[in-house]
C-alpha cells in the first residue's frame, strides 16, 4: 500500500445551472498521507463542499484523477462508489444524521449491515461505542441523548468499519464550545491511537489550528497565499 491515502490530481467539477456552467473546482491537486490530520477551509462558495463530496466519494469529479487508498475512484459507477464509501470512508456530519427510531447500537451497526457482514456485528458496534465512551448509552435512542452524545454515536458509526479516513464536516458546528472541544479531542485521540486519517471540513480557525495541515480553498482553487 502507498503512503498516500488521498491523491487528487487536477480535480475539476462543473455544475450545470440552467444555461450557465458553474465551475466549483478548477483543477485542485494535493496529497494526504496516511495518518495525517488535515482541515479543509474556505469561505462559502469556495468549492469546499464539492471537494468534500468528491473526497468522500459521494460525487464524481468532472475530470481529473482521484485515488483513494490506492484505488482510482474517479470513473466508478454508483454501486462501486457505495462500496468504497462503506469500506474506506467514515462520515461525521454537522447535524449528526442519526436515524431517530433506532438505538445507538443499531445506528452504529448500519455500515456493517451494508458491508454484508452477518456475524459479530453487534459486538463490533458495541466496541465502537465503547471507544467513544458511550458504553452506558448503547440501547438509547438518539432522542434520548445529548448533542455531544449523538455526535459520539456518529463517530462510532464512522469508525466501526475501520475506514481509511474519517471525513468530518463541521463536526462541532451544532455543539457548544465545551462539548465541541470534547468531540475534537475524541477525533484527534482516535487518530493518534488507531492512525486513522482525519479530514475536517470547517470554517472555524480554532479547529483548523489543531490539525497538522490546512488546505485552503478560494474560488475553486487551492489558496496558497497563506
Amino acid at each position, binding site marked *: 500500500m502507498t503512503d498516500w491515502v488521498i491523491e487528487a490530481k487536477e480535480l475539476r467539477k462543473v455544475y450545470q445551472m440552467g444555461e450557465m456552467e458553474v465551475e466549483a473546482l478548477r483543477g485542485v491537486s494535493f496529497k494526504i498521507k496516511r495518518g495525517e490530520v488535515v482541515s479543509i477551509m474556505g469561505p462559502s462558495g469556495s468549492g469546499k463542499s464539492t471537494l468534500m463530496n468528491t473526497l468522500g466519494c*459521494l460525487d464524481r469529479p468532472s475530470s481529473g484523477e482521484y485515488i483513494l487508498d490506492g484505488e482510482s475512484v474517479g470513473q466508478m459507477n454508483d*454501486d462501486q462508489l*457505495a462500496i468504497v*464509501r462503506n469500506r474506506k470512508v467514515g462520515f461525521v*456530519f454537522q447535524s449528526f444524521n442519526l436515524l431517530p*427510531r433506532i438505538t445507538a447500537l443499531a445506528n452504529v451497526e448500519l455500515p456493517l449491515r451494508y458491508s454484508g457482514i452477518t456475524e459479530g456485528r453487534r459486538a463490533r458496534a458495541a466496541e465502537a461505542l465503547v471507544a467513544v465512551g458511550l458504553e452506558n448509552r448503547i440501547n438509547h435512542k438518539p432522542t434520548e441523548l445529548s448533542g455531544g452524545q449523538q455526535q459520539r454515536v456518529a463517530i462510532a458509526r464512522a469508525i466501526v468499519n475501520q475506514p481509511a479516513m474519517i471525513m468530518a464536516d463541521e463536526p462541532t458546528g451544532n455543539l457548544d464550545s465545551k462539548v465541541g472541544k470534547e468531540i475534537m479531542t475524541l477525533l484527534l485521540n482516535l487518530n493518534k491511537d488507531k492512525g486513522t486519517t482525519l479530514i475536517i471540513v470547517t470554517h472555524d480557525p480554532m479547529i483548523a489550528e489543531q490539525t497538522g495541515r490546512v488546505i485552503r480553498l478560494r474560488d475553486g482553487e487551492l489558496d496558497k497565499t497563506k
Partner: protein
Amino acid sequence: MTFTQALLEALESLSGNKLRSGLTLLGIVIGVAAVIAMLAVGQGAQDSITGSINGIGTNLLFVFRGGQDQQDGPGGPPGRSSSANTRPLTLGDAEAIADPLSAPSVAAVAASIQTNAEISFGGEKSNTQVTGATQDYFTVRNLVLAEGEPISDAHVLGRASVAVIGPDTAEKLFGHSDGVVGETIRIAGQPFRIIGVLEAKGGGAFGSEDDQAIIPLSTAQARLMKRGAVNEVDVIFAQAISAEAVPQASEEIAQILRQRHRTPVGQDDFSVLSQQDFLSTASTITNVLKIFLGGIAAISLLVGGIGIMNIMLVSVTERTREIGLRKALGARKRDILIQFLTESSLLSLLGGVIGIIFGWLIAFSVGQIASANDVAFIPAVSLSAIGMAVTSSTLIGLFFGIYPANRAASLEPVEALRYD
C-alpha cells in the same frame, strides 16, 4: 442485507408511523375483503342456482316450441318465444314421444300448459302460476303430496274442476297449509276443489315450486288457457330411463317431432333441453355475475394500491435525508430499492391477510342474513379466491411500490443529504 433484516427494518419503519401505516393498510384491507366477499357471494349464487337446477332431476328433458335459434334461452317464458311460422306442440306430440317403440329411452312423458292466474279464497287473493297437467306430471317432476291425492287420468278425462296447490299458496289463501283439502277456491273466477297439497321443496331455479296450482290439462285447455289449436301444449316434460340415456332420449324425441312436424333438417321448430343445458346456461350467467362482482372489487383493490403508492411517495420524500445517509454509509441502489419494496409489499401482504379475514366475515354474515330470511344461499369462500386475493394484493404492493422505491434508490447521495 438479508431477507429477515430487510423485513425487520421495514416493520420498524412501518411501526414508526402507525396511524399512516394503518390507514394505508385499510385501503388494501377493504380491497381484499371486497374481492373475497364478492367472489364468495358470486360463488354462493352459482352454487344455489346449480343446486336448484340439479334439484329438477338429472333425467328430465324439456321440450319447448320454437327452434334453438329462436329461443331466448331457458330463462325466457317457455313456449312463448316461438315465431309465428312454427308449429305448436300438441298432445299428439306428447303421446308419440310416450310410445316406447319409437322412443325406447324415454320412461315417462307429461304435457303441460301454463299461465298465471289470480287464485282467491274468501277475501284472500294471490297471483300464482297455474299448470294444466296430467297424472304423469307428478311422476316426471318428482312432485310429492303432503296431503290429499294428485290429478288423475280420470280427472283429465272428466275435465274435473279440481286443483292441487303448493304449500305457500295454501298459506297465502288459508293462513295454514294443512287441512285445506276439500275447500273450494277460485282460479280466474272459476271454482276448483282442492284435492291435494304439495310438500314444501324450497326455492327453485324458476321461482318457488311451492307457490303454484296444478289442475287437469283438459280443464285448463277448455276453461282457462285458450290456445290457438285444440290440444296445443306449452311444455312437454320427458323423463329418460337413466341419466346416461338423456342424450339418446333427446335425439329420439327430436326424431319423432321432426317427422311429425315435417321440418327440414336443421330447421327444427322445437327445442329439447336437458338439465345439462340449463346448467351450462346458468353457469354462463353466474360466471358473468362473478366476473362483474370480482371486477368491482378489483377496482377497490386497485384504489388501495394507489393508496400505497401515494404513501410510499410521501415516505420517500420525507426520508430523503435518511436515504442520503444510508447511501453515504454504503447502501447500494439495490439496498434502498429492497428496503422500500419490502415496506410496500409488507403493507399489502398484511392488508391482504386482514382483508381475507374481513372478507370471510362479510361472506359469513351475508350467509347468516340469508338463512335468517329463509333463503337457501351460502356464500362460499374458495381457496382459489384467497390465493388470488393474496397474490394480487402482494403484486399490487410490489407494482405500486416499484416507482417510489426506484425514486428513492435513484436519489443522488449529495442531493439527498443536503435536503431538508
